[in-house]
């Protein structure tokens, strides 16, 4: 194949090069730059340094797992799996059963979800679909503000404002009209499972609401328009065109909220009563896995005591990790993976 490239025809003599004065003076910077060495070694050092930082992240998880499993060996050998099914927590006699804490954690978290989910989804729906545009920014900012309040401040407010409110108004009301459900029995101390559930609900609304908003916004506009074009009301458009499509992501947000509730410590500790008992009534005091660690860890005497608390921590760790992974996967399917298809 003929290639005309090599040997370009000679031009009538090269053009006069730039005047000598410029040629002489200017090569200084170039010479200096050319002399400065190659960059392979510094580049490699930098890369390894950054890699080391990245490995720290992996090391962190390894350290956590190692610490938790090693320091809980004692109680694991002593009690085995029954540890989580026995309800006697007796430091005096070195008998440890974590069932009350598992029960308390589950009940408070589920109660929180029951209260929080309708509220969070309602707020998200309002902000994304119903609210005037100028109000969107301020409203979402204020909801985010709830997420910024430290747990201990929630607890403080709960002790001095929420609990008296429950004790004086809400609990008598519930006992009077809903006492037949056996969930609202016993003396209304204010402190107890109900208070814990309510304060937890307030704390997890922001995260559920934020994820719901994110997945709702990710639903393409065409979906909304398709439903509207059929002559639907606004609510029908929202429920069929948006919520239906985003339901996997909303589920993910709810589960993420659950994960947050399971691990929440301070606010719950301050209002749940810290009694390792299992009771049906929501008025009764209880105990959660996070709370028992918070309350008793620094004063735990004896290796078995400490080991049992660490085992509770290990269980909490495993549960929250699993819950969070499930949640993130669900959210990912709507925002980044194949968008959920509408079943029209």
């Amino acid at each position, binding site marked *: 194949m003929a290639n005309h490239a090599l*040997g370009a025809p000679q031009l009538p003599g*090269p053009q006069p090069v730039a005047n000598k004065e410029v040629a002489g003076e200017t090569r200084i*910077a*170039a010479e200096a730059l050319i002399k400065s060495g*190659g960059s392979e070694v510094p580049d490699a050092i930098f890369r390894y340094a950054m890699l080391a930082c990245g490995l720290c992240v992996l090391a962190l998880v390894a350290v956590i797992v190692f610490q938790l499993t090693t320091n809980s060996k004692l109680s694991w050998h002593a009690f085995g799996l029954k540890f989580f099914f026995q309800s006697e927590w007796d430091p005096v006699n070195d008998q440890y059963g974590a069932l009350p804490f598992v029960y308390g954690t589950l009940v408070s978290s589920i109660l929180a979800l029951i209260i929080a989910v309708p509220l969070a989804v309602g707020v998200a729906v309002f902000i994304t679909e119903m609210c005037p545009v100028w109000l969107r920014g301020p409203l979402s900012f204020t909801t985010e503000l709830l997420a910024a309040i430290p747990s201990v401040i929630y607890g403080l407010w709960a002790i001095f404002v929420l609990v008296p409110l429950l004790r004086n108004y809400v609990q008598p009301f519930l006992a009077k009209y809903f006492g037949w459900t056996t969930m609202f029995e016993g003396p209304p101390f204010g402190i107890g499972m109900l208070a814990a559930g309510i304060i937890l609900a307030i704390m997890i609304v922001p995260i559920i609401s934020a994820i719901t908003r994110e997945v709702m916004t990710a639903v393409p506009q065409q979906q909304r328009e398709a439903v509207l074009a059929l002559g639907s009301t606004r609510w029908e458009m929202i429920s069929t065109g948006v919520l239906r499509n985003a339901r996997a992501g909303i589920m993910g947000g709810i589960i993420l909220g659950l994960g947050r509730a399971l691990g929440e410590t301070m606010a719950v500790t301050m209002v749940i009563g810290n009694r390792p008992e299992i009771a049906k009534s929501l008025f009764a005091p209880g105990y959660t896995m996070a709370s028992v660690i918070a309350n008793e860890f620094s004063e735990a005497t004896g290796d078995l005591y400490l080991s049992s608390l660490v085992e509770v921590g290990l269980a909490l760790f495993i549960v929250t990790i699993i819950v969070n992974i499930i949640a993130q996967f669900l959210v990912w399917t709507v925002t980044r993976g194949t968008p959920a298809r509408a079943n029209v």
Partner: protein
Amino acid sequence: MGVGIQVEKLNAFFGKTQALQDINISVLANHCTAVIGPSGCGKSTFVRCLNRMHETVPEAKATGRVRIGEMDVYNGSSATHIRRRIGMVFQKPNPFPTMSIYDNVAAGLKLNGFRDRKRTDEIVERSLTYAALFHEVKDTMHKKSGASLSGGQQQRLCIARAVAVEPQVLLMDEPCSALDPISTGKIEELIFQLKEKFTIVIVTHNMQQASRVAEFTGFFLLGKLIEFDKTEKIFTNPSDKRTEDYITGRFG
């Protein structure tokens, strides 16, 4: 002050896809050579192989021999080293957004360790003059950021930045395609003057531009160099039918 470029058997790949096939070309010092061809013909890839920018794309590879002056681009020096001696101007003006105009021009010097403040001042002034930008910015060059200029000015800033390190060769990858006609005209004038000091290789999809600024032109098609000759000849009496088809607008 410019040097010639010799390319022998240059092949370039993106992973398994071959983008350039056996390119042989000889670029004359202190002249402007244009590289033309339809989209996807490999002209940008070719120019980016000259200063090893092609390698910055993951899974990209190039084989062959490229000599710029006495420098063997692929054997013997690191890519960073090579790039300090070759200047490049990109399609979209890309001044460093967090730096002032002065700092942008001096970036090639400072980031490579050149510390002489007085010399840097001189070099910045000179480079901005080469780029026909000095008078417009001389009062604000320390205060205004590089990104605050207009498109055409930004591109001239990028040219000033590229020439500040005193390269021997200036590579330009469609430098005017993102600019309006007036800015394009100014830059074409610039190229005319820059030719005296540098060897210029310019990629362009605008044939009229090639005939305006370049003495030599190479026509690329599907990764091969079809024809390389004086611009005049390419555009009035091409030897290869494919060249003729392209310049008469039958495709591309």
